[in-house]
C-alpha cells in the first residue's frame, strides 16, 4: 500500500528519475524531456538511484541498461524486489539493437518498456507522457482515496465526538435534573438519615426557608428531625419510623414541626427505607409544608362548626317567644360550641340592664355573678361598637374590676379573651352578648360571627316583642269589644226596664197614672241615656275619623271662660251625683281661636274623667294666658294613676284601672291627644296613685298652622284636615 501523500503537495508535477552513468546522456535526456509538469531527477549510477528511491517516490524511472558496477537490469531487479517500489514503472534506454531477447530480458527484469536511444525524441516524450499521465491519474486516485479516508475518519470522529457530547450532555442533564429536583423542592425538605445511627446524611437547602434551620444544623445530632417535632406528634412519628425500619417499606405522616423561630409548621413527611451505595440502611424522607392546607382545613372545619352553631343558635332564638328562656338556651349552646363563658344582658322596660343568662362550660362553676363586665358592656351599648380583646391582661381586668373580691373572682375564672357585641333592634341597642374564652384568642372572624348572632338575637327579641304587641293588641281589641258592648247597652238597660215595666203593668191591668214628678224623673233618665248613647257614638265616629285622617277642624274665636262655664253647668247633675265640687278659675278676657267643638270635647273628657275618678272630692279647673299661650289644667283628688300607667292611658282603648270598670270606652284621652295634636298643643299628666291627677293642656291661644304645612296663620273659620296618626299607640306628650 503506497504511503499516503501529503494532500497539500501539488500532485500534478511528475517526478522522473533519470539514471545513467554517462553524464552526457543524462544531460541529453534531461534536455529532451524538460517540460513543465516534470521534475527530472538525475542519478549517475544504479546505486545512487536506489538510494534516492529509499525516501522518494518518482512516477517513472528512465534508466540506461548498460552501466558500470550495477547495471540497469540489476538495479531494476533490486527496485522490483523492494516492496515499496515494486509498482514503479521502469523504462530501459538501450544502445543495443532491439530484438526479442533484449526486450524479453528487459520485461523479465520488470521493465515497462524498452526504448532505443536513437528513437525519435517525440516518441520518447510521448511514451514518457503516457506514464506521466498514468502517474498523474494514479496520484489523483491516491489523493481521492486519501481524501475519502480522511473524510471518512473525520466523519467518524465527529460522530463519535457528537455521541460523546450527547452522552455527556445527557448525563449532565440527568445530574442537573436530579439536583434541581432535590434542591428545587421549595415546598418540602428532602432529608436522609442513617437507619441505625439516626445521623443526618443529607438535607436539601429548602430546610432554611421552610424550617428556619440551616443545613449545617442537621448534622452532628442524631434524630434532629424528630427532636424538633411537636411534643404531641413525636411519639407517633417515632413509632412510625420504627415500623418502616422493621418492614423495610415506606409510610407517610402528618405532623407538626417547631421551626427555629418557634412557629408551628404542619408537615406531611413521606419516608422510604433504602440501601445506600455503601450498603448502609438509610431512611429517605420528603417533608412537605402543608401548613396552608391544614390552615384551610382548619378554617373549613371552623367555618362548618360555626355555620352549624349559627344555624342551631338561630333555631333556638326563634324557637320560643319566651325571650328569657331562648336566651338561656342560646347561652348554654354558646358554651357548648364556641367559648367557655357566655353572658346575655338585656335592657329592661325600666331602662335598667339585667343579666338574663349566664353560662359556663360544663365542669366550670367559677363564672360567678361577680364576673360582670359592666364597664365594657355599657360602653358597647352606648356606642354600638363591638369590643374584641384578643388577649386580656390582668391590668385591664383590674381596671374593669376595682373591687378586689370581684377581681379575684374574675381571675379565678381566668378569662383569656373577650368579645362583647351589642344586640340591635331597629337601630337601637337593647342588650349585649358577652363571650369569654379561656383557651383561645378571639379574632375578627369570631367577631363577625358574634355580630351575626347579635343580629339574630335582635330579630328574635323583636319578633317576640312584636308577637307580644300583637297579642296585646288582640287583648285590647277584645277588651274594647267587651267594654263597647257594655257601654252601648248600659244606657239601653234602664230605657228597656222602664218600657217593659209599663208594658207589664198595662198587661196586668195594674198601670196607674204616675205623678208629674215621677214622669219628669223618668224623662230625665231617658234623656241622659240618649245623650250618653249619642256621646258614645260620637266617640266611635271620632276614632274612625282620626284613623282615616278625616277629622276636620273649624276654627273660630270665642271666650274660653264662657266655654268652661257652659260645660260645668251642663255637668251639674253628674257632678252632684258624684258628690264632687268644682272650683273654677279663669281670666274672663281670654280669647282663643280654636275649633270650639273639639276643644269642648277635650274639656268634657277631662272633666268627666275627673268626676268619674275623683272619688267625690273637689275638682279644680284653672286657665291662664301667657305670651300668646293658654295653659289650662283639670285637677282631681281621686284614685290617681300609677307611674307605670301614665303613658298608657293616652293610648286607644286604654284605661289605667284594669279588672274594674269606671265606665266609658277608654277612648277619651286618646281623642283628647289627637285633637290637641291637631291644634299643635300638648297635654301633660302629673299624678300619683291614690293622690289624684292633674292634666295640663298647653296650646297657642290663636292656632297657627305649624311650619310643616308652610302657612303661617289660620284665620277664623279656617278648616284644616287632621292627618291620620301612625298605627302605633300615641305616646303621651309630657
Amino acid at each position, binding site marked *: 500500500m503506497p504511503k499516503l501523500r501529503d494532500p497539500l503537495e501539488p500532485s500534478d508535477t511528475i517526478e522522473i528519475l533519470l539514471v545513467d552513468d554517462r553524464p552526457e546522456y543524462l544531460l541529453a535526456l534531461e534536455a529532451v524531456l524538460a517540460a513543465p509538469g516534470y521534475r527530472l531527477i538525475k542519478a549517475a549510477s544504479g546505486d545512487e538511484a536506489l538510494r534516492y528511491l529509499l525516501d522518494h517516490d518518482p512516477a517513472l524511472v528512465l534508466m540506461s541498461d548498460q552501466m558500470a558496477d550495477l547495471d540497469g537490469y540489476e538495479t531494476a531487479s533490486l527496485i522490483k524486489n523492494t516492496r515499496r517500489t515494486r509498482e514503479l514503472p521502469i523504462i530501459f534506454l538501450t544502445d543495443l539493437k532491439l530484438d526479442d531477447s533484449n526486450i524479453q530480458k528487459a520485461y523479465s527484469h520488470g521493465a515497462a518498456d524498452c526504448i532505443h536511444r536513437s528513437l525519435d525524441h517525440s516518441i520518447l516524450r510521448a511514451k514518457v507522457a503516457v506514464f506521466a499521465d498514468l502517474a498523474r491519474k494514479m496520484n489523483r486516485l491516491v489523493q481521492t482515496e486519501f481524501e475519502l479516508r480522511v473524510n471518512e475518519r473525520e466523519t467518524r470522529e465527529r460522530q463519535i465526538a457528537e455521541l460523546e457530547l450527547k452522552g455527556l450532555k445527557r448525563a449532565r442533564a440527568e445530574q442537573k435534573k436530579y439536583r434541581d429536583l432535590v434542591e428545587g423542592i421549595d415546598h418540602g425538605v428532602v432529608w436522609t438519615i442513617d437507619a441505625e445511627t439516626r445521623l443526618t446524611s443529607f438535607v436539601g437547602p429548602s430546610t432554611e426557608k421552610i424550617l428556619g434551620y440551616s443545613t449545617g444544623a442537621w448534622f452532628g445530632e442524631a434524630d434532629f428531625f424528630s427532636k424538633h417535632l411537636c411534643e404531641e406528634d413525636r411519639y407517633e412519628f417515632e413509632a412510625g419510623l420504627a415500623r418502616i425500619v422493621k418492614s423495610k417499606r415506606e409510610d407517610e405522616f402528618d405532623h407538626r414541626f417547631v421551626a427555629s423561630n418557634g412557629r408551628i409548621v404542619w408537615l406531611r413527611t413521606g419516608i422510604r427505607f433504602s440501601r445506600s451505595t455503601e450498603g448502609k440502611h438509610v431512611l429517605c424522607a420528603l417533608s412537605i409544608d402543608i401548613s396552608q392546607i391544614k390552615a384551610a382545613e382548619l378554617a373549613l372545619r371552623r367555618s362548618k362548626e360555626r355555620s352549624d352553631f349559627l344555624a342551631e343558635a338561630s333555631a333556638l332564638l326563634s324557637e320560643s317567644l319566651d325571650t328569657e328562656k331562648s336566651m338561656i338556651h342560646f347561652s348554654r349552646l354558646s358554651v357548648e360550641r364556641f367559648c367557655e363563658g357566655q353572658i346575655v344582658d338585656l335592657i329592661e322596660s325600666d331602662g335598667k340592664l339585667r343579666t338574663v343568662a349566664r353560662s359556663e362550660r360544663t365542669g366550670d362553676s367559677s363564672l360567678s355573678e361577680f364576673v360582670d363586665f359592666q364597664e365594657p358592656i355599657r360602653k358597647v351599648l352606648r356606642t354600638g361598637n363591638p369590643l374584641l380583646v384578643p388577649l386580656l391582661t390582668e391590668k385591664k381586668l383590674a381596671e374593669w374590676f376595682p373591687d378586689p373580691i370581684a377581681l379575684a373572682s374574675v381571675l379565678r375564672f381566668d378569662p383569656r379573651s373577650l368579645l362583647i357585641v351589642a344586640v340591635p333592634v331597629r337601630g337601637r341597642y337593647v342588650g349585649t352578648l358577652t363571650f369569654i374564652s379561656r383557651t383561645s384568642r378571639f379574632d375578627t372572624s369570631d367577631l363577625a360571627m358574634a355580630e351575626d348572632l347579635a343580629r339574630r338575637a335582635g330579630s328574635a327579641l323583636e319578633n317576640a316583642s312584636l308577637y307580644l304587641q300583637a297579642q296585646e293588641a288582640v287583648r285590647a281589641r277584645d277588651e274594647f269589644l267587651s267594654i263597647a*258592648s*257594655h257601654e*252601648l247597652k248600659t*244606657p*239601653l238597660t234602664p230605657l228597656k*226596664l222602664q218600657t217593659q*215595666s209599663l208594658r207589664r203593668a198595662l198587661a196586668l191591668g195594674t198601670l196607674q197614672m204616675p205623678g208629674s214628678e215621677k214622669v219628669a224623673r223618668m224623662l230625665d233618665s231617658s234623656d*241622659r241615656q240618649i245623650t250618653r248613647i249619642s256621646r258614645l257614638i260620637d266617640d266611635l265616629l271620632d276614632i274612625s275619623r282620626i284613623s282615616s285622617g278625616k277629622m276636620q277642624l273649624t276654627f273660630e274665636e270665642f271666650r274660653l271662660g264662657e266655654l268652661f262655664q257652659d260645660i260645668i253647668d251642663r255637668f251639674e247633675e253628674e257632678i252632684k251625683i258624684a258628690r264632687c265640687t268644682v272650683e273654677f278659675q279663669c281670666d274672663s278676657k281670654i280669647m282663643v281661636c280654636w275649633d270650639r267643638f273639639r276643644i269642648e270635647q277635650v274639656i268634657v273628657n277631662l272633666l268627666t274623667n275627673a268626676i268619674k275618678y275623683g272619688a267625690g272630692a273637689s275638682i279644680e279647673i284653672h286657665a291662664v294666658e301667657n305670651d300668646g299661650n293658654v295653659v289650662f289644667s283639670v285637677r282631681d283628688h281621686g284614685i290617681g294613676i300609677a307611674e307605670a300607667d301614665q303613658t298608657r292611658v293616652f293610648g286607644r282603648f286604654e284605661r289605667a284601672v284594669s279588672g*274594674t270598670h269606671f265606665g266609658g270606652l277608654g277612648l277619651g284621652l286618646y281623642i283628647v291627644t289627637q285633637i290637641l295634636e291637631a291644634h299643635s298643643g300638648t297635654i301633660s299628666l302629673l299624678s300619683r296613685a291614690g293622690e289624684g291627677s292633674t292634666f295640663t293642656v298647653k296650646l297657642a291661644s290663636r292656632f297657627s298652622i305649624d311650619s310643616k304645612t308652610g302657612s303661617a296663620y289660620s284665620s277664623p273659620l279656617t278648616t284644616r284636615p287632621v292627618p291620620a296618626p301612625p298605627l302605633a299607640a300615641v305616646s303621651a306628650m309630657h
Partner: protein
Amino acid sequence: MSRLIFVIEDEKDIRDSLTEALESEGYSTICASNGREAIQMFEGGAEVPEKMPDLILLDHLMPFMNGASFLVRAKQNRHLADIPTILMSADRRMTQKAAVFGADGYLHKPLELDDLFGTIEGHRTHKNGKGNQIL
C-alpha cells in the same frame, strides 16, 4: 214577707229602674254601687242589715271591684257565701264565664223583665236549703 233582692250595680239609672221594677213586682231591695261597697256592707265590724238578702243581682263591669272579684270575696264571707247570685253583663261571652266565676245564674243586658223575674223565682231557696221561709 217579701223577698229581699240585693242589687249591686254602678250605673245609677240602671240601679234605679231595676229597683223600681223589682219593687213594683213585690220584692224588697237593697243596693250597692260596686262590689267593694257591697262587701263592706257585710264585713266584720259593719252593721249588717237586719234581714239577709235572698238573692243578689250582680253587675260585672264596675269600678273598684268588679262582679267576678265580688264573687270570690263573697265566697269567703259567711253572710254572703250561700246567697244565690245572678251575674248581669252586656257581653255575651259572660254567659259561659258566669258559672266559672261562681255565679248561680246569668242575665244578659239589656234585661228582659220576664227573664229577670223568672230567674229570681227559679232561685227561691238558699243554696244549702236553709234559706228564709217562703210565703
